[in-house]
């Protein structure tokens, strides 16, 4: 069995990639990343003045004020990282929400289950393939933008590359939610809705200190705090992502640990449920 495991994992991952390519999920995200890289490559022009100052022009419209090059690049890096973290995450979740339940639909999952594979192996391979797919796109975009700016300005802020693990980490947590909902309901729509709801709720729940003052009773404050601590901290991890990209020290890593715990619990629940389900 152990001799068989590695190739079978590769076969399952390859199939997810194949499906993503044929369903245009991969090409769609790849095209968006490429468009963004090309935008910075051709349309945004940065003229470096005396090695330290720069003027910036977009579609030929020049920003007259000369700026510090390193600061300018860092600002653009952070804007790209924020855009990727917010918009890219929505797109990635949307794409994964179609890929994840597809393998579990009736008539298809029975065939998979009839093979000499363990159930957790099938689900984890699918999860890993989805994660790998998104990581490749994130890596492509971040490295592409980093290379374009490095080449144009000579400024190579390595801290920008932190956006790759930070964004991939949060996606891994949200993908666990997609996986659990997919196993439970086999519905791409429900998986998308629940995951998006968590993303949207996160900045609201993050205001727990303010809400503690506004809420009238102690139990409602406890409920609010309970939700904040239990659910993934999309908003807070986004803040950590920005700190890392901007080269600032991270003051509180707790959102990472609690989100990791949430992701592990949810993924374990998905594996447990998949193990027990009848198809």
């Amino acid at each position, binding site marked *: *069995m152990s001799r068989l495991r590695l190739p*079978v994992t590769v076969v399952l991952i390859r199939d997810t990639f194949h499906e993503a390519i044929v369903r245009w999920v991969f090409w769609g995200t790849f095209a968006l990343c490429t468009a963004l890289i090309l935008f910075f490559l051709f349309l945004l022009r940065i003229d470096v003045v005396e090695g330290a100052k720069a003027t910036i022009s977009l579609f030929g419209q020049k920003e007259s004020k000369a700026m510090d090059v390193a600061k300018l690049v860092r600002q653009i890096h952070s804007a790209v990282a924020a855009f990727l973290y917010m918009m890219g995450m929505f797109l990635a979740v949307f794409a994964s929400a179609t890929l994840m339940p597809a393998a579990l*639909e009736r008539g298809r999952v029975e*065939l998979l*289950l009839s*093979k*000499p*594979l363990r159930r957790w192996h099938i689900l984890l391979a699918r999860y890993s393939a989805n994660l790998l797919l998104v990581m490749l796109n994130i890596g492509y975009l971040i490295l592409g933008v980093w290379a374009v700016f490095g080449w144009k300005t000579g400024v190579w802020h390595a801290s920008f590359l932190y956006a790759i693990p930070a964004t991939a980490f949060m996606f891994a947590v949200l993908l666990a939610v997609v996986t659990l909902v997919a196993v439970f309901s086999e519905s791409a729509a429900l998986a998308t809705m629940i995951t998006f709801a968590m993303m949207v709720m996160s900045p609201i729940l993050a205001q727990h200190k303010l809400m503690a003052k506004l809420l009238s009773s102690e139990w409602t404050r406890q409920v609010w705090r309970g939700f904040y601590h239990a659910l993934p901290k999309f908003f807070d991890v986004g803040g950590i992502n920005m700190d890392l990209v901007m080269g600032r020290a991270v003051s509180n890593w707790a959102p990472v640990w609690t989100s990791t715990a949430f992701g592990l619990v949810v993924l374990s629940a998905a594996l447990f449920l998949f193990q027990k389900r009848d198809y």
Partner: protein
Amino acid sequence: MSETAAVETHDLTKVYRTLLRRRDVRAVEGVSLRVEAGSTFGLLGPNGAGKTTFVKMLLSAVRPTAGFARIFGVDCRRSQARRPVGYLPENHRLPGYMTGRGMLDYYAALSGMGARARRRRAAELLALVGLEKWGSTRLSRYSKGMLQRLGLAQAMMHSPRLLVLDEPSDGVDPVGRRQIREILRELEERGVTVFINSHLLAEVELFCREVAILHRGRVALVGKVKELTAGKGYRLVAAGVPERLEAELRARVAAAARRDGLLELQFPSREEANQALDLLRREGCEIESLTPTTSTLEDVFMRTVNV
């Protein structure tokens, strides 16, 4: 009787529990069956009898509530038990984005076959099921009958010792059905155990040596087809029947099959058997035998499920 059965179940039970347990559904109840290695076994039953649930329990797609099932002596809950099994599910959804060859390759790889063996076997099987020209076409363009034949090829890819087919003739035209039957007959000759779950009684009667009838989740009847059908009707066996006449006769009979060059025809009445006999004589065919049968499998089935 060999020591290790291909399939062995003991008191296999499945209860689908609903929320609050107000309306539990007992899909399969205390089913004990033994399918000998190398036999052809048909599982029959009306809709909702629990046939598909039973098959899915064998393959661990459904977890038994009680009892156990073994495949070649291995507990069916272990992944190893599924290694010698080829499965064609009912209402399967083969991934439409794959090509015929790609699909065969994918599922065979999951069964642990090596790349070179997969390539060779896929070409062989595509030819066997008459889809050699469709190997590079995406499955989304296949007809239902083609998908069914490809599904059968998928089940056979890793040369399984046990073939479990859930409604294998579903959506297949008469020519395709005959082709499937001939393929299965060949597998039987090679010692492969074939387990068919079907509601097409005539098909099962023609192909399977043994049957079990499930009714309301329980085994209502189990036995050898020959013994169960030794009743009303006529079985005519002839040799040297030309294709044109065979097609004509097949349209008139309750069931027909070709075994070892002989054509077996099952007639519900003496008049129809006599008419066929005249036709065969006129064409100069040799009559091997004409035997009265007490009943067809359909009669047995109807009596068993009290319809």
